[in-house]
């Protein structure tokens, strides 16, 4: 098996041409497209044109009957991991104020902010999370400003969802507060204050997709998973986490690995409206959650519109 790759392809027709060169010139039979904008229309169009090639997109919403069968999307529910981070942060925060630096108010980001907040409030319902949206995926200067501003407001654990958490984590460490990481482990950047973090484990879904292609099994069109399925993992508990916090983290992680959902009614948004009625539980894999457009109770901030 041979892997060819191309980086920094802009989300334009260049995507289609890159895929076609991979198919025509490199004889690729399975293509991974890993930026949101590659899915619609680019990957879908090329998938229709090359029905024998398999296409897998990270994060898109492949829909039965609407999209070609040789295309598909995979993604991880990392909010389970954010919930566990929230439990540990909730135990560690003396000021009861958490901070979250977020890129854009899209469903995947909102799920993370909400899950983190819900994890912390499961420890102490008086905890709040202050959120700042920077407006884009990679804005190092704004991310540093946002982190500093959160710390100035009394936040003592900060978390984030931006492309590169480095700036947020390092700023937190420099200012002497604790942090939770994202995407991969940032423990090395903040040896003192790093509590834990929600990490991707892409080897799991990629392995499944490659195995299906190799053995000629049908393409996995809609592949999702979280902590339970091994798509997501936690950073090892950091030095700053107290024994009590670690214990609670272990328990929360065990519950997530069993497949428990955190989205149980009654759940209120931060404007007082009910978003999940009492008696309803949405499984972590429920696609309804991929349309999330609210911040839960306890989040201080609003979705810009």
């Amino acid at each position, binding site marked *: 098996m041979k892997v*060819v*790759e*191309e980086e920094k392809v*802009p989300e334009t*027709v*260049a995507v289609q*041409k890159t895929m076609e*060169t991979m198919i025509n010139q490199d004889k690729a039979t399975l293509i991974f497209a890993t930026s949101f904008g590659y899915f619609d229309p680019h990957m879908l169009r090329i998938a229709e044109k090359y029905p024998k090639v398999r296409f897998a997109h990270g994060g898109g919403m492949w829909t039965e009957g609407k999209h070609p069968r040789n295309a598909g999307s995979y993604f991880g529910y990392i909010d389970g991991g954010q919930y566990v981070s929230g439990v540990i942060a909730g135990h560690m925060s003396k000021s009861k104020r958490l901070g979250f630096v977020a890129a854009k*108010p899209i469903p995947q980001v909102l799920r993370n902010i909400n899950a983190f907040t819900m994890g912390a409030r499961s420890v102490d319902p008086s905890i709040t999370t202050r959120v700042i949206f920077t407006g884009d995926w990679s804005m190092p200067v704004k991310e540093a400003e946002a982190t500093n501003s959160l710390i100035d407001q009394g936040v003592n654990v900060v978390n984030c969802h931006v492309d590169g958490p480095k700036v947020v984590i390092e700023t937190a460490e420099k200012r002497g507060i604790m942090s939770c990481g994202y995407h991969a482990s940032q423990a090395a950047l903040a040896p003192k204050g790093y509590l834990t973090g929600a990490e991707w484990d892409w080897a799991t879904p990629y392995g499944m997709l490659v195995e299906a292609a190799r053995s000629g099994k049908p393409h996995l069109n809609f592949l999702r998973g979280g902590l339970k399925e091994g798509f997501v993992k936690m950073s090892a508990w950091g030095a700053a986490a107290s024994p009590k916090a670690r214990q609670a983290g272990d328990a929360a992680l065990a519950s997530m690995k069993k497949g428990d959902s955190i989205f149980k009614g009654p759940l209120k948004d931060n404007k007082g409206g009910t978003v999940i009625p009492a008696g309803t539980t949405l499984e972590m894999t429920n696609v309804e959650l991929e349309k999330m457009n609210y911040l839960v109770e306890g989040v201080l901030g609003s979705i810009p*519109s």
Partner: protein
Amino acid sequence: MGSTPDAVVSARRTPPPSEAVLRWVVPLGSIAAGLLAFGAFVLAIGHDPTEVYSTIYEGGFATAFAWNNTLLRAAPLILAGLAVAIPAQAGLVVIGGEGALALGALCASAAAVPLLPTLGAGALLAGALAGMAGGAAWFALVGVLRAHRGLNETITSLLLSYIAIAVFNHTVEGPLRDPSSLNKPSTLPLPPQSMLGAIPGLDVHWGLAIGVLACAVAQLALSRGTGGFALRVAGGNPRAALLVGLPVGALIVVGCALGGAAAGLAGAIEVIAVHGAASASVLAGYGTLGILVAFMARQQPLAIVPVAILMGGISAAGSLLQRRLELPDATTMVLQGLLFVAILAGEALLPRARR
């Protein structure tokens, strides 16, 4: 002016470089020099230059597939280059094309989608016109600030571009957001079958032909039209232009607006032919690459077409360079940059009067 009649006579006696030399030898020589410098760079990072050259040729120009790839990437660069070249005739260096392109895309989407049920294919025309109007209005602002307030157009266009992009992002993620565009905020999309199609026999949308046509019209207007002539006089010597009664201020505003219309059209075509909706994906840096294209074409509208094709070919070849030779993505930018510097240096060698 200060020369004696003798000097004038002797100047006439030394034959000036012929038109052909100026038009072809200097630019082509510059391109060759740029390619050679790139070869040295490739050698320095431990690769075989001939292999890199042949890969660029293979990826950009060797087959019908490569040509389609190249032309598709060249299409938006033609109009983006024209957006710089038209104001340049009036002596202006306007570099905020990305902002005008963003507003063009936004206006096109806002106009075309609601009009589609009533106008059908006419909605695409409405979208294109709305995009041109949006871009033109934005650049006209640059022209007005220059003509009436003396503000440097390079700086204002750059700063206004940031504002335009912020307006674009705000509108796409807010008021005009399609509620079903979940993790990639976009405006309401045009259905694929209603979008601008491909040129028959090619895998490239009609935007390419529109760009070439726009360049031809611009070239004709500049070389034959009185308006184009007035624009060039205003650019060459504004004081003289005022003395002969030309409305220099108005010419500056119109020149800017026409450039903005070209950028806006580029954005509109991205929406009606490529993406179907306005989203952050539309802002792929064409407006910025257009500056490079226009300068390499020495601000001559018709020359923009081959330069854009050259740039498109280099980006198309970038795929193969990365995958076959495992060169980093930035390699193509190094080549584009070296060509740019070589062409500007070549221009500096030209006799003064011919520049």
